[in-house]
């Protein structure tokens, strides 16, 4: 089932739609709407415009409560002492934030960043040739099968994925038993084990993200390069890769975000034996912190949001740029 904890699938579909939803590409409004918008008839039950806002009101209210309140809770909580603190709570402090960037928590944050960088890099490097091999395949059925499989696997994650790998490469997993891997020092419940598992949904995600860009590479470019005497390597070095660069980088950043936010897989598989920021937040929320540090989890959440915002800030411009190139 879907990896709910990651923001992945939506972004992937955003990538597929070529950033069509970007504000820059507003579809031309039909004359009727513009007229209605320009000529509001005041006094007649607020006019169509007023009614339109009325129809959107439930969504706006829901969002304000469901998203706004938690956001306020994080923003306020991260900078105030918690209610179990000696001073009764509610006073301004930056201790939560500094605490969340020290000791075990810093190790976890760094661990998450390292894991995400490594897995995103491997997935990008593996995903590109795979996507290329599939995109240029002569068999349409094969292409469609791989794309649909990628769609499923990119969304497949969380607990079921963890169990599949425990059954395969865990201590009593079938492959482990078959080849006696434990004797060679293999353990699934480590940093490298977790990386192997993460690739299972990151590589398909990369394939989905990069395929539209690969399909946008015109055969004429390749032929033109060949006519000018370029070898395959030269074509890739000077033509294809520069064109693909924004998409590749965008894909990489997207994978980083997916891997960074993942929680369920690691929780079901390794618990907290591999230090990851998402695990630490889960621990801290379950009350596993020192007295008076109840708001530390909120500060950790804030750390995570900051990283995710950075990721998006890099991803969105790249996404727009590559959409422009390959339109």
């Amino acid at each position, binding site marked *: 089932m879907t990896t709910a904890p990651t923001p992945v699938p939506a972004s992937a579909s955003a990538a597929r739609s070529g950033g069509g939803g970007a504000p820059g590409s507003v579809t031309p409004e039909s004359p009727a709407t*513009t007229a209605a918008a320009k000529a509001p008839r005041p006094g007649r039950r607020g006019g169509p415009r007023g009614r339109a806002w009325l129809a959107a009101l439930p969504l706006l209210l829901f969002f304000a409560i469901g998203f706004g309140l938690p956001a306020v809770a994080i923003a306020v909580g991260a900078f105030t002492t918690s209610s179990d603190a000696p001073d009764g709570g509610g006073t301004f402090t930056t201790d939560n934030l500094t605490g969340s960037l020290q000791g075990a928590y810093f190790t976890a944050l760094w661990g998450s960043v390292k894991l995400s960088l490594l897995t995103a890099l491997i997935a990008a490097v593996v995903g590109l040739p795979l996507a290329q091999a599939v995109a240029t395949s002569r068999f349409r059925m094969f292409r469609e099968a791989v794309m649909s499989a990628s769609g499923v696997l990119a969304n497949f994650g969380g607990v079921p994925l963890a169990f599949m790998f425990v059954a395969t490469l865990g201590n009593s997993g079938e492959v482990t038993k078959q080849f006696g891997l434990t004797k060679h020092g293999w353990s699934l419940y480590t940093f490298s084990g977790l990386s192997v598992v993460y690739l299972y949904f990151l590589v398909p995600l990369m394939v989905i993200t990069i395929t539209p860009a690969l399909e946008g590479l015109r055969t004429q470019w390749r032929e033109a390069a060949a006519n000018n005497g370029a070898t395959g390597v030269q074509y890739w070095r000077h033509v294809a890769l520069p064109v693909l660069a924004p998409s590749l980088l965008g894909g990489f950043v997207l994978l980083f975000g997916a891997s960074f936010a993942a*929680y369920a897989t690691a929780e079901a598989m390794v618990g907290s034996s591999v230090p990851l920021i998402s695990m630490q937040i889960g621990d801290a929320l379950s009350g596993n912190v020192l007295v008076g540090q109840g708001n530390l989890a909120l500060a950790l959440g804030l750390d995570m949001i900051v990283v995710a915002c950075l990721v998006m800030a890099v991803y969105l411009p790249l996404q727009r740029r590559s959409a422009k190139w390959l339109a």
Partner: protein
Amino acid sequence: MARLINRIRFGRGLVLLICGTYFAVPMAASLWFSIDDNKGGTTFRAYTELVNAPGFTDSLVLSLELAGVSVAVLLLLLVPAMLAARLGAPKLRPVIEIMCSMPLVVPVVALTTGIIGVLRWGPDYLQDTPFFQTVVAIQDPNFPIVLVIAYVLMALPFAYRALDAGMRGVDVVTLVEAARNCGAGWLRAVFTVVLPNLRSGLLNAAVLTVALVLGEFTTASILGFAPFSVWINSNGKSDGQMSVAVSMLSLLIVWLVLLLMSAVGRGRKAARS
């Protein structure tokens, strides 16, 4: 030239072989694990005893209920707002779009921290107000409304894109104008003309939401509720074989659902041309 082509073919074959192995082995091994009786034979115990496993039905029912309610709430909130943005207030559109992209920026774990932060206000500050009862009520373990809120938020971006794609393919404004010119009222125009035309977009949004809710683990587990994915995890501690079996089944179900969706989409396209 022929040698070059051969080399490319070979490279492609190698890439596909390695990747194919990596993706096929865990599936095959899990399947084998779920029917291995550890004495060299096979057993289908994990599949046959599934229904009788403690907690299986309860957690599955809870998950399905959550999924159903989440879909209903999501569509009731999103569809009127999106239609209104197209029909009457173009300025609303960027607002909705930004709103629906924001949950993407916040990792689910972080969203959960925020939710817990809000829920803590209950006992801390609201003890004597009617709000306290509300805070308690939305955490009812039999049907945690707080999870519905979280799931609707998480599904907003997916559903928005699915619906937006659907509305892009249909000229909603013209449809409504035509219906109004024929004498239909607003409600009638929307329900009998617009919504049937958005069927596939609505279906996509619903299916994505259901898949998300059924697989969601983070929020439910941190908040301490026990829907299906949490059950798989806790059951796995006592009966690994059964949880692997369930994992395989869930993969199969997601696959079937997606195949069905693309088949429906293709059928509609064929019918139109």
